[in-house]
């Protein structure tokens, strides 16, 4: 191998403390070096020309440049060499400036060190291999999972930029939690009024394919090239025929049997239903678990009344596959179940608050429904047990949130604000009522947020008590709320008519499963993990998969919308080019020596290691070995260090390259 060595003075920057001509001379004696020279500014055009000239004249196979940090000019020199016909990965940089001349004073020591650094680079480059940038075609189409406000925003942004979007929503209608809210903080404007136009826009957008009542089943592929299998759950209604007249729901005989999900169980719905009047798409579904026909084989009332013959009891779940280039996950949150026996085994319930036991202990979303004009009480402030107006109401914040003994340590972020809003809405409707709020701290960071809370306290005279509630029990129709006022240092007992718990926002129960489907990571609570907490907040470790909204962490509406737009922007960046270019620094398996222990798979943060069967010509299984999915590998090399037989190597940082450097240490 013929190696050319170039030593840069960087003006005086290197030259002042490193004797560059001497370094160049020393390098000339290294085995393999056929050309060695020094120059004032290697990165300048004349400097680059020197390199190109030497490559052409001396037929160099590899180049070593002693200059500034590779983080500065590695690309420059690689490009120069490539233009002269050397593969750009046959170039090595020795950091003579940041790691040598700038940090040492003694010229002899610095020169000696510079020679050593050059030797390392020369030895290393002998083992470099020509590599090609990995190019991947991009499918310019996006999948958005979740039709809440965040997903809606992301879908609209991408569609408006001219690219197709597949929007998958597991419920019969898009809209998410925002559609359930009465008013929004800090402006107290009506939630549905601002949301509904967006939902309709999604429905009507020619670039958006809306798949409601559907779930992502399986994902394969990698950035730019995902193949997604989606399960379309049987609605039992032919979507293309239904006009959304609502007659079927009206006539359904089992009006009182099913609890309305939309009203958080505070009202009932029929077996065939649309979740709420403004639903998009306005197509009902049959809840087969309660439908008389599906239970007994008799009834068919809905079918009889439907003039369009849209009811189809035989419908089955179907599967569609979609090719997309990016995936935006916007699956949102759910409220922590504070029932006596929570569904999530990792969390403990708040048995002491009697939720689920006392009808008048409700959660925040239920209060939203009570306060909402479209809710079960048509906006009248009536408590669930006896439909009377509560005269004394207690709000408890941080139910679950910031409580490690219940399994959470994080703050749900929005409860301070919505509790203030709840208290305000209550006071506005029940002027003679008393509202108490038990809080730990008030966290009202945000535009006009603190002012909003002050308004609740000062103008609407909501009583804020700093402290926790120890338990609630019911005596004679009143809820006895026992707590502590930590400022007064006294126990507090309030006989309340209604208690509203600001329960924690938690990740969707299916989040870990979806994360596994998408090969992204999630934290111990089930929230999806971003690629970098500061600099890559909407990206995940898996290229091409982005996050939006409360599936990442508790978020309020403006943040969810901003994140939706950010994720859309990230997708659009991806769609900006036809081919995706990636550094070829990825791991590679030697299948002949791999023993299939799959420790590499265990340490891989990107799920880039797959199993591959090796068969002989007759098709008999020889062995199962590891295989690197080059679309997913990010090139950290942890697998390389973990592999006991070194059957997996990181191209570009192969063992022989690093050993060459270490071996050169003997000459230091």
């Amino acid at each position: 191998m013929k190696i050319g060595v170039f030593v840069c003075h960087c003006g005086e920057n290197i030259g002042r403390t490193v004797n560059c001509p001497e370094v160049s001379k020393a390098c000339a004696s290294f085995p393999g070096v056929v050309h060695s020279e020094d120059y004032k500014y290697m990165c300048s055009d004349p400097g680059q020309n020197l390199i190109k000239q030497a490559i052409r004249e001396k037929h160099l196979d590899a180049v070593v440049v002693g200059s500034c940090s590779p983080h500065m000019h590695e690309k420059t020199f690689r490009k120069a060499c490539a233009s002269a016909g050397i593969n750009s990965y046959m170039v090595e940089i020795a950091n003579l400036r940041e790691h040598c001349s700038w940090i040492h004073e003694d010229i002899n020591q610095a020169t000696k060190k510079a020679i050593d650094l050059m030797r390392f680079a020369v030895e290393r480059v002998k083992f470099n291999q020509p590599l090609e940038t990995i190019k991947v075609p991009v499918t310019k189409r996006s999948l958005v999972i979740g039709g809440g406000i965040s997903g809606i925003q992301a879908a609209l942004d991408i569609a408006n930029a001219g690219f197709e979007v597949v929007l998958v929503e597991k419920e019969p209608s898009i809209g998410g939690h925002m559609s359930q809210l009465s008013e929004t903080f800090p402006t107290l404007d009506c939630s549905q009024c601002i949301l509904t136009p967006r939902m309709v826009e999604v429905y009507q957008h020619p670039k958006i394919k809306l798949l409601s009542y559907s779930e992502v089943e399986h994902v394969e592929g990698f950035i730019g090239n995902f193949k997604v299998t989606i399960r379309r759950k049987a609605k039992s209604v032919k979507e293309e025929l239904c006009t959304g007249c609502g007659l079927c729901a009206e006539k359904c005989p089992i009006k009182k049997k099913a609890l309305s999900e939309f009203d958080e169980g505070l009202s009932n719905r029929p077996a065939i239903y649309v979740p709420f009047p403004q639903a998009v798409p306005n197509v009902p579904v049959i809840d087969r678990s309660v439908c008389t026909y599906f239970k007994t084989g008799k009834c068919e009332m809905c079918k009889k009344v439907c003039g369009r013959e849209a009811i189809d009891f035989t419908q089955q779940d179907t599967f569609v596959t979609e090719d997309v280039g990016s995936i935006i996950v916007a699956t949102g949150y759910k409220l922590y179940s504070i029932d006596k026996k929570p569904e999530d085994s990792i969390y403990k319930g708040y048995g002491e608050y009697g939720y689920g036991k006392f009808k008048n202990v409700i959660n925040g979303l239920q209060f939203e429904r009570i306060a909402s004009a479209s809710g079960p009480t048509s906006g009248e402030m009536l408590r669930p047990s006896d439909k009377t107006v509560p005269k004394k109401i207690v709000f408890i914040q941080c139910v679950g949130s910031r409580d490690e003994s219940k399994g959470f340590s994080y703050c749900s972020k929005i409860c301070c604000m919505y509790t203030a809003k709840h208290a305000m809405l209550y006071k506005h409707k029940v002027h003679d009522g008393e509202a108490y709020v038990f809080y730990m701290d008030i966290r009202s960071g945000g535009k006009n947020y603190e002012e909003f809370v002050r308004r609740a306290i000062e103008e609407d005279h909501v009583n804020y008590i700093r402290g926790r509630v120890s338990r609630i029990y019911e005596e004679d129709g009143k809820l006895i709320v026992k707590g502590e006022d930590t400022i007064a240092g006294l126990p507090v007992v309030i006989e309340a008519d209604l208690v509203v718990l600001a329960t924690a926002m938690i990740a969707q129960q299916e989040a870990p499963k979806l994360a596994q489907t998408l090969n992204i990571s999630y934290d111990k609570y089930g929230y999806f993990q971003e690629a970098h907490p500061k600099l890559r907040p909407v990206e995940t470790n898996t290229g091409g998969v982005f996050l939006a909204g409360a599936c990442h962490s508790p978020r309020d509406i403006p943040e969810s919308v901003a994140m939706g737009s950010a994720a859309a922007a990230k997708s659009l960046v991806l769609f900006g080019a036809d081919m995706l270019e990636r550094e070829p620094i990825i791991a590679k398996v030697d299948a002949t020596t791999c023993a299939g222990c799959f420790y590499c798979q265990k340490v891989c943060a990107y799920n880039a290691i797959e199993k591959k069967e090796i068969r002989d010509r007759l098709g008999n299984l020889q062995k199962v070995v590891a295989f690197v999915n080059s679309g997913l590998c990010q090139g950290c090399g942890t697998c390389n260090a973990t592999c006991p037989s070194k059957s997996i190597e990181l191209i570009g940082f192969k063992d022989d390259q690093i050993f060459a450097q270490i071996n050169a240490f003997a000459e230091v």
Partner: protein
Amino acid sequence: MKLGYYPGCSLNGTAKEFNSSLKEVFAALNVDLEELNDWSCCGATSAHVTSHILSVALPARNLLIAKKQGLNELLAPCAACYSRLVSSQQELKLDEKMRMKVEDLLEEKVTNGLQIINLIQIFQKIGLDKLKEKKQVDISKIKAACYYGCLLVRPVDIALPDDMESPDSMEAIIKSIGGKTVDWNFKTECCGAAHSIAHTDIVEKLCKGIIDNAQKHGADVIIVACPMCHSNLDMRQLNIIKHYPDHKPIPVLYLSQLVGLSMGIDEKKLGLGVHYISTKPLLEKIKSDALPTEVKKEVPAPPVSNDKIKKGVEA
């Protein structure tokens, strides 16, 4: 069935009737109790607030004795003993450094694998069906308020597997022997145990609250499984009566006593005559032909037995 038995100090002192009722009931259920040889303090009294290592080492010593005696299960009827024993066992399992310290102290290797059970668990183990079979006396005429206190269900995760805030395993046992229970709100409210001696006023106030709530929900008797709860609720009623003139006394029984009653075991053997608040009205009610009572406005107050008042005064 053979079972190790760690009575602890209370069952030899203030809670003798707990001890005797328990032995009677288990004899009837064919459970052999083998008392630990040379057992010592469980660490619940002063040790666990003054010396952490002692509070782990003292139970560890007893656990070792049990192991040496070849026992696999150990019954600790006192809730405080139970709590200390399971806590210590857990800590020794998880904290290797502590284990080594304790081993140094005991000059012996600590072994684990012993199952520690409390009164509720042993009944569950025997099987509620078996209790039902043994039932001879109808106790459906009285209503019981099950009081758990703090130690039976704590520390959570390692103690009795029940809801810490709203347990119901005692209710299940009583139901199995045909008893009725009330749904009330003070099952785990503090009885003031830690202040039992020093601040009787606090204890009285707390116990009064517990008793009132039980009575409000129609209870004729409070059932406990902890000597500490018992002494606070039963004995302190004497003073409660003094300070709250309208107080209506209510007998407080150990779960084993009630189970014993249902099995038809002699009242004396069950130690039902040694309560501060007389159990006579209760026993009469069980025997009476009257229909089960709803909450009656005027229940005649059970007279306080004279001998106990004397004792109370002496104490």
